C-alpha cells in the first residue's frame, strides 16, 4: 500500500514537471496587418520619405524607401513609386543645378564623384505631367515643406523638378492622397523646414526656419486634410539634423583624413593642429574651434572639404590662400543654438498636434541621437552617424543608405504594430547591409 502511494506520488510529481514546461511557440502567428489595410497605402513627405540617397532620387534608392520597404513587408508588391532611372536626379544647391547620384571612387584619399545628368533619365519622360496617369502611391517630393505639400501641384512655376516628376500637375500631395482614397497613410514631413537652415548655415526666422506658430498651423492643416476621411495614419518627427555627417565630418582644423595630403605630423595632437578660419554670421573672421564651450565653436559643411583642400580657410603661413571659409559653409555657435532650440520646439509641436488627432508618432529624432551616441547594433554590426563608415548615412551625409532606411522602416513598423495591433515583422537588415553599389 505504502509503495503504491509512493509510486503515485512520483507520477504526480513527474506530471507537474511536465506541466511546468514552457509550452512550444504558437505556429500560427496573428494576422500581419492587424486593423490596417495596406493595399492602398499612400506616402506623403519629402526626400526622406521619397527614398533620396547619395545626393539623388534614383530607382536604386527608391526601392529602399521607407514606404516601399513597409509595403513589401506587408505583402503589397504593387506599391507604385515615380521611379527615376540611374543616375537619378539630384540637386546641387551650391551650383544650383541638377545632377545624377554620387558614387564612391576611393577611400584614401576620399574621392566621391557626382554622375552627370547629361540627358533626362529614360523613365523621367514617362513621369512627365499627365493628368490621366494614376496617382503614385509614394507622393513624397524631395525638397517639399509642409506648406509645399499643401499647396504645390507640380505644374506651377516652382523650380523643384521633383514636383513635376511626382505630382505631374494632378494636384498637391495632400489632394492626391485624399483622392486616392487610401486605406493607410505614412507621413514624414517637416524635415526640410529645419534642414534648410542647416544647409545654408543660416538661422533666420521665416526664411530658413519656420516660426513655431506657422509650423503648427501648417501641421494641423496637413493632418486635418489627411485624416478627414478617417484614414489611419502614422507620422514621424524631425530627425536630429545637427548630428548628421553633413555637418559633423569636416573638423575645424586641418587633417589628412579628407584631404589625403600629409600636412600634419600628428593630426590627433591638438597642440599640432592648424585651426581653420571662417566667416561668422556677423561678417567677422574667426579662428574656428571644435570645443562646444568656446565662442568660436562651429560646424563645417561636408562640401567645405573641397574648399579647404584648395587652400581656403587657411592662413598663408599655414600653406593656405589666406581666405576664410565662407559663411554658407560655417554653422556657427549661435546658429547651432537657434536650430537646436527650434528643432526641439517643432518636434514638440508635432507631438502636440499628433496627440490632438490621435495619430501615432515615430520617434526618428531619438533614433538619430542614438546613432550619434552609442550607435545601433544589428547582429553585431554597429551602425553610427559616422560618414562613409557608419553604415547609416549615404554619400550625401544627409539621407540614409538602404540599411539606414531599413532601420527607419523598422521604427515605423514598431509604431504601426504597437498602435494598430498589427504584427508586421521587421525589415531584414542583414540583406540591406549586403547591397553593393
Amino acid at each position: 500500500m505504502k509503495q503504491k502511494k509512493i509510486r503515485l506520488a512520483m507520477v504526480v510529481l513527474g506530471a507537474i514537471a511536465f506541466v511546468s514546461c514552457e509550452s512550444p511557440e504558437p505556429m500560427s502567428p496573428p494576422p500581419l496587418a492587424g486593423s490596417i489595410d495596406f493595399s492602398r497605402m499612400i506616402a506623403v513627405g519629402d526626400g526622406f520619405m521619397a527614398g533620396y540617397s547619395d545626393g539623388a532620387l534614383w530607382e536604386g534608392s527608391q526601392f529602399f524607401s521607407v514606404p516601399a520597404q513597409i509595403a513589401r513587408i506587408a505583402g503589397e508588391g504593387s506599391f507604385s513609386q515615380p521611379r527615376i532611372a540611374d543616375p537619378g536626379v539630384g540637386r546641387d544647391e551650391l551650383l544650383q543645378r541638377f545632377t545624377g547620384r554620387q558614387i564612391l571612387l576611393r577611400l584614401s584619399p576620399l574621392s566621391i564623384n557626382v554622375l552627370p545628368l547629361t540627358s533626362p533619365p529614360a523613365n523621367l519622360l514617362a513621369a512627365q505631367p499627365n493628368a490621366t496617369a494614376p496617382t503614385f502611391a509614394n507622393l513624397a517630393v524631395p525638397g517639399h515643406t509642409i506648406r509645399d505639400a499643401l499647396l504645390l501641384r507640380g505644374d506651377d512655376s516652382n523650380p523643384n523638378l521633383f514636383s513635376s516628376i511626382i505630382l505631374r500637375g494632378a494636384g498637391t500631395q495632400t489632394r492626391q492622397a485624399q483622392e486616392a482614397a487610401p486605406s493607410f497613410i505614412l507621413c514624414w514631413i517637416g524635415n526640410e523646414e529645419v534642414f534648410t537652415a542647416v544647409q545654408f548655415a543660416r538661422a533666420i526666422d521665416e526664411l530658413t526656419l519656420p516660426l513655431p506658430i506657422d509650423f503648427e498651423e501648417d501641421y494641423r492643416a496637413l493632418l486635418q486634410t489627411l485624416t478627414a476621411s478617417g484614414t489611419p495614419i502614422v507620422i514621424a518627427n524631425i530627425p536630429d539634423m545637427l548630428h548628421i555627417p553633413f555637418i559633423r565630418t569636416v573638423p575645424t582644423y586641418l587633417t589628412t583624413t579628407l584631404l589625403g595630403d600629409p600636412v600634419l605630423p600628428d593630426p590627433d595632437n591638438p597642440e599640432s593642429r592648424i585651426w581653420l578660419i571662417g566667416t561668422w554670421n556677423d561678417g567677422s573672421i574667426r579662428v574656428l574651434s571644435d570645443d562646444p564651450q568656446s565662442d568660436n565653436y562651429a560646424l563645417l559643411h561636408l562640401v567645405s572639404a573641397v574648399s579647404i583642400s584648395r587652400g581656403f580657410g587657411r592662413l598663408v603661413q599655414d600653406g593656405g590662400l589666406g581666405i576664410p571659409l565662407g559663411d554658407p559653409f560655417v554653422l556657427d555657435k549661435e546658429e547651432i543654438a537657434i536650430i537646436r532650440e527650434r528643432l526641439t520646439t517643432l518636434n514638440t509641436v508635432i507631438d502636440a498636434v499628433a496627440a490632438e488627432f490621435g495619430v501615432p508618432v515615430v520617434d526618428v529624432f531619438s533614433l538619430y541621437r542614438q546613432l550619434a551616441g552609442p550607435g545601433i547594433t544589428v547582429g553585431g554590426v554597429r551602425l553610427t552617424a559616422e560618414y562613409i563608415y557608419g553604415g547609416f548615412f549615404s554619400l550625401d551625409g544627409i539621407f540614409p543608405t538602404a540599411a539606414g532606411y531599413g532601420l527607419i522602416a523598422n521604427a515605423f513598423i514598431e509604431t504601426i504594430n504597437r498602435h494598430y495591433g498589427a504584427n508586421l515583422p521587421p525589415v531584414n537588415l542583414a540583406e540591406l547591409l549586403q547591397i553593393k553599389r
Partner: protein
Amino acid sequence: MTSLLRHIFLYCLLFFAALQQAHAGGWRTFEYSAVATALAGAVITHSSDPSALVYNPALLSHLAGTQFIAGAQLVRPEHSLSGLAPFPGFGTLEQSRDLRYVPAHLFASQQINDRLVAAIGFYTPFWRRMAWEEPRRFSGRYLVQQSEFSAYALHPSAAFRLNEKLSLGLGLRLSWNRFRLIRTHPTLINGVIFDTAEFQLSENSPAEVTLNAGLHYTLSPRLQLALAFRPLQTRRLEAVPMTIRQLPTGNSELDTDVQRLLPQQATATLQMVEPLALAAGATWRLSARLVAHVNLEWLRAEGERDLVLEFRVDSVATQIVQGWHHSLNLRTGTEFRLRPSVRLMAGYGYLPSPQPTTASSPLLVDSDRHQASLGARAVLGRLTIDTAMALLFYHQRRIEDRNGAALAGVYEASQWQVALSFGYHFGKESTRE
C-alpha cells in the same frame, strides 16, 4: 513514517508550485560518471563510487577501503538556427559544426578510519563549444564566430560520519578555465559590410577555488535524505588582448585602405558566473530490487551579469550581457537489481533554461530541456563497469531580437551522450551501511 513521507511530498509539490516560473538548467556538464549519466544526475543521495564528491561529499563516508573510478563521456550536441528579421533574416539556416567533446573523469577515495573518508577527483565541471558550419559565412560571426569555455577541476574532499545516521562532507574544488573566442570584425563602407579582420582570444585563467559541502541523513533503512551546497562562483578575464588578423576582401586597393582603418588594439573581457547551487535529494528503497532517487536543485543566478562578453576595439566597446533567471532542476532516477551483479538504471531530468529569451545568442545557445537516460552496472568481483547513454531534447526557442545583441530566429538543439566508467575497490565491501 507515512506521515513524514506525506510531508515530504507536500513540500515538494509546494516547492514546484511556487517555483514553476523559475528557470533552471543551463550549460554545465553535470554528469561526471556513467552512473550519474544513467540516473540523469539524480545522485545527491547515491553513494556507489567516489564521483559522489562532486554532488555531495558527505556520501563519501559510505565508501569503504580504497576505491577508484575512471572513465569518459562522449557528448555530442547539435544546434540550428532558422533566421528571422531584422538580422540575419528569413531563409537563413545555420547548423552547428561537429561539437563532440570527450570529458574524462578520475576519482579515488580512501577510508581513513571508521568515521573519516578522504577522496580526490579530476573532472571537467563545464565544457561548451559553439561552432557553426561555414564559419566565415555564419551570420552571427560579428557577434561570436566560435566560442569555447572549458574547465578542469581537481577536487579534494573529505567526509565525516557523525553517527550511524548522519554524515557531513566538505570539498575544495580547484579549477582551471580555458576560453577561446573568434569573432569577425565588420567594416562598413558606404552602407555595405566587408569582413576585414578576425579577432581571436585564447586564454587560460589562473586556478580558482570553490567550496562544496553536503549532508547525508539515513532516516530509515528505506529512506535517505541529503542536502548539498556550492556557492556562486565568478570567473573573470579582464581586458585580455586579442590577436587581430586582417582578412582579404578580394580587392587589393580596398585591402590597403582597410589596413589603415583596422583597429590597433582589441581586448575582450569575459565574466561567467557559475550559479549558487542548493540541492536536496531523497532515495527510497522501494523493494529489495528497486530504488528510486529524486533530486531538486535550485540554482541561484547572479541575475544581471551572469555572462558578460565585452569587446573593446580601440576605444569602442561592444557588450553582450546576459542576466539569467534563478532556476530549479528536477532529476529523477531508478535502479533495478536484475541480478546480484547486474543493475539497470534509468533517469529523467527536466532542466529549464536559466537563460531568458532576450539573452540567447550564438555565444551560448540554451533552452529548456528534457533528459532521458539509460544505463547498467556490472560487478565483476572488485571491478565495476558502468555504461550509460542519455538523450537531451531542447525546447525550440524563438528569439525576436530588435536590439542587435542576438541573432533573431528559431533556435533548435539536441544532444546525446554516452558514458563509460570503470571502478575498482580494495577492501571487503565497496559501501558501508
